[in-house]
Every structure is written in C-alpha cells, then in structure tokens.
C-alpha cells in the first residue's frame, strides 16, 4: 500500500522536483522554504538557496519560519542585506529561480498579494509585495504556490502586485522586462504551466486521485486540460526527507496524514 501523505507534502515535493541541481534559488517563507530545502536534500545538493534578506547559502540546519529568521544567518556563505540579495536576483548571468505564494492568480500568471476589493478601502488586506514583484519582474524564472479554488484562480485580479505574462503573447517583453516570468503553478490539485506562445496557463500534471474536472471546477477562468499527465506520488524517500529532516516539528507541513 502506498504511503499516505497530505496536500502540503505533495505540493512541497512537486515544487521541489522542478529544481535542477546547481540552480540558484530565491526562496520565500512557508511552502517555498520546504520545496527548496527538500530538493537540496534529495536530488539537488548543489542547488544554492538565498533569501531577499541577504542570507546567502545558509546551512539551514533548522527550518526558518520567515526570511529574516536567524536560521538564515547561520553557516552561510555570506550574510549581507537586501540590496546585495536583489543584486543576485537580478544578476544578468545567474539563472535565479524564485518560489512565491499568492492570494490570487489570473490565466497569465499575474499575481495579487496585496488586497481584495478596492485598494483604498480593501475588503481583505494581505501583506503586500515584499520581494514578489521584484522576483516576478527580474528573476530568471518563478514557481508559484496556490490553493486551488475559484476565489483565487480568477479572470481578473483585484490588484496586480507582481507581473507574470501580463496579457500573454509577447506582452511581457514589450512592457520592458528582460527575462523571467512564471514557469509553473503548484497547487493542491496539480501543476500548471504556461503555453510557450500564448503564455496562457494550462494543466500540466494532476496529482494521484485528482480529476481534470476537479481542476476545472476550482478554476475561475478557462484552462486547457488536454495536456495533463499524472504526477508521481511522493516516494518513501521523499516523504522521509521532508518529515524527518526538513520539517520534523511540522511547522509548515501542519497536521500529518491520517
């Protein structure tokens, strides 16, 4: 019988699998921290993780709960500050991959982490850009985390915090961006990617036990479901690394599977 696992575990591992050995990873808090650290411990030991706060390639002996956690300052290659970190994010030669979460996303991978409702009198206020707009504007590529539901996968964002593929096609390039844009969206249902030409989101992989219809039902815009394959379930080795090594206190993973 295959091992039981939670949605969060599947998401962290699905995102981690998108990391290549040698990648330079710009990680945020929460799931992105898990994805980066689990990838580094399983298949990408030469990947380097750094944080917008200036912590470059720390030992990460314990899981940081924020990008300013003192755990990103220990055993590092370099302790610096925000401007140094962003100089690496934006470096012409480094292929920095960024992990980000969001409150809303549209069909072209533009995201909202600022508010719902009117900006001047928001119904719900979120934390804001932080480094998200910078990563979406300047990183080599971005991998996004989302809870998959219609309130979050929307036709039109309440606020466009961070530019993805804008209105698709070559609109991002025309707007003045030199590179980057979202590469994948990892949700609790599967992994989406973006068409090479139209830059519109499509379903790339379904997690075991999830149907394409479930994705459609939870997406507030039209999405191409025809290219989907099945994601590998988490392996014993992946789950062991994630649970015993990366987040033994389940600080980010939350409650264990039944």
């Amino acid at each position, binding site marked *: 019988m295959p091992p039981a696992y939670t949605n969060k575990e599947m998401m962290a591992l699905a995102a981690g699998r998108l990391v290549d050995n040698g990648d330079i990873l710009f990680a945020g*808090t929460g799931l992105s921290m898990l994805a980066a650290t689990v990838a580094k411990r399983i298949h990408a030991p030469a990947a380097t993780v750094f944080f917008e706060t200036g912590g470059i390639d720390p030992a990460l002996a*314990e899981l940081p*709960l924020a*990008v300013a956690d003192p755990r990103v*300052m220990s055993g590092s290659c370099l302790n610096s500050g925000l401007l140094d970190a962003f100089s690496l994010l934006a470096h012409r030669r480094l292929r920095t991959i960024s992990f980000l979460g969001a409150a809303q996303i549209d069909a072209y991978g533009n995201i909202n982490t600022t508010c719902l409702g009117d900006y001047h009198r928001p119904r719900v206020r979120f934390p*804001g*850009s932080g480094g998200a707009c910078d990563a979406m504007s300047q990183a080599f590529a971005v991998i996004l985390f989302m809870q998959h539901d219609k309130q979050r996968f929307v036709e039109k964002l309440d606020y466009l915090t961070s530019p993805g593929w804008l209105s698709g096609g070559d609109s991002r390039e025309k707007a*003045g961006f030199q590179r980057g844009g979202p590469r994948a969206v990892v949700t609790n249902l599967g992994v989406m990617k973006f068409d090479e030409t139209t830059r519109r989101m499509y379903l790339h992989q379904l997690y075991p036990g999830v149907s394409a219809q479930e994705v459609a039902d939870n997406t507030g815009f039209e999405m191409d479901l025809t290219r989907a394959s099945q994601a590998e379930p988490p392996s014993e080795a992946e789950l062991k690394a994630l649970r015993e090594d990366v987040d033994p206190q389940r600080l980010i993973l939350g409650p264990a599977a039944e």
Partner: protein
Amino acid sequence: MSEGNDPQGKFMSAEEAVRRFVKDGDLVTIGGFTVSRNPMALAREIIRQGRRDLHLAVHSHGQAMDLLVGAGCVRRIEVAYGGTGRFAPTCIRFRRAAQSGELEVEDYSNFQMGLRFLAGALNLPFMPCRSGLESDLLAKWGFSPELRQREGKLARHKAVVTENPFGDTGERVVLLPALTPDVALIHAQYVGDDGTVRIKGLTFLDLEQARAASRVIVSCEEIVPAAYLRQDPDQNSLPHFLIDAVVRAPYGAHPTACHYFYDYDPRHLNMYRREAGEDESFRGYLKRWVFDAPDQESYLAQVGTSDLIRIRANSQAGYAPGLDRR
C-alpha cells in the same frame, strides 16, 4: 549606559531619546525585518509617549510596525510587506487598520524600498528600477496627487516611468523617489562608547535607512569600549558621527530575534496574534506590555526569566536550536 566616556552626550534613556528625537508627524523608519531585530524597546516608548500622526516608511515589517499601527501612532505608511512569517502571514493590526481606512497605505516592493533608502543615503533624488512595470504598484496610488502636492514631505509622484537614454531601444524604466526619513530607529548588538555601531547577522536595510535619515536612534544589547570595536573595523556597521542617541536596551528587540543574543519568542508572538485579533484584547496587550511596564527593565520582568532563558541564542548557531516554535 556604561561607564564609557560620552563627550557628545549621545548616551541616554529610551524615554529621553524618544522625547528629544521623535516628534508627532515625523517620517519614521525602523530597522530590522519581520521577526528579527525590530527596535521594540523604542517602539514601546513611542507608544508610551503617545506620538501621533507618524508617517512610517518601511520595507518588510512585522512586530514593531504592527504595534505602532495598533496603538494609533501611525497615520500613513509606505510599506512593502506587513507580516511576521508563520506567526502572522499578514500583520494583524496593520490589516485591520488598512481595511478600516484609518491607515493610509502606499505599497512598494522590497527592492523598490531598498533603492529608495539607498537614494536617500547617497543624497540622490531618485533611483531607477526594473521592478513593477504594468503592475498596480505603479498604477494605484495610496497617496493622491493632491495629498502629495499638499504635504511637503511627500514626493510629487509615487513613481514615474521613463526611457533609458543610454540605449537604442527605448527601454522602459521605473523611477522611484528617494526617502529621507526624519528619524531612523535601529536595534544593534553592539555600540562602542564613542557611538560606533556593530550589527551582527543580516543588516537588511538598516545601514541605508540610517544613512538616509536626518536623525538616528540606536538601541543596543551591549555598550562596549570603542577600542574593542576598533580592533576589527571591517566588522563595524555605522560611524559614531551619524548617531544622535544610543540607548542601552538588553533584549531590546524582544519578541523578535537578535542574532547571537536571542531567538524570536514563539510563545509571545503566538499570544500576540491571539490578543491582537480583537480590539479589547489588544488594549489589554498594550496595557500589560507597554503602559504598565514603564521601561525595558520592567518589561523584561513581565516576560520573566524562563522565557528569556528559553530563547537565549546558542553561541555557535546564533539562535536557540531545538526551540519549540509551534
């Protein structure tokens, strides 16, 4: 303060530093980042002294910002991020104040705020930036053009899109106005008895914020002889002649972390999240942790020895390994 010499009268209590150097309506910036090195002892003193109409300019800010906003000291904020990681993905009082409209918010990104402080530090009027073209960070202004026209401290525009004059392609670039705060509040590990500042661990934007500000207040864990810091000037962070006030405040960043001294305090931060959730319980929090504790010494007595010992940093790691952070 220590028994060191104080030729320029820089060493003083938090009460005196805030009274002399933070005025109602000031443009204030605070050092640290989310859960690390927030100048909490100074923030609590600002609340005690009832400062009003402050204009905060910060990047990713958490505990100090949320406390000042919750206590009603802040009228306007320029901000990139309000949160404390897992403890409060969005700062509780910041969220409520933004939603109720009592706080005027102007959003930027972290790189943008970093460049704006850097511009202030280098005495440049603006900085170019490649972040945010076509985003609502540029399109939606929290501070209206009319307000910007009326208020001398505000730049006329939130941002301006222009063309790079040095290339052939008409490449579009964002220009961002410099930030020159009236006062910067910084918490450091060490200050020399001449005022020289040494910060350990990440410096975030503290150095740019301090250099951009007209006045600088530094609270610190330890005051040490200047000669000790001058044995290795490579490790020092800010020169003495930029610092207006030095306040000795052990655990002055609590409940946020101070690398090599103490970790963040998960129990306090979780308790804060619960109490900040409702107006009445938040008033109870302020009473207990700010107003009824008139200085840092009585605040620490309120925290109690067992929590202070539990978060004490391990000398090798710089944080508290194995700390229960649930």
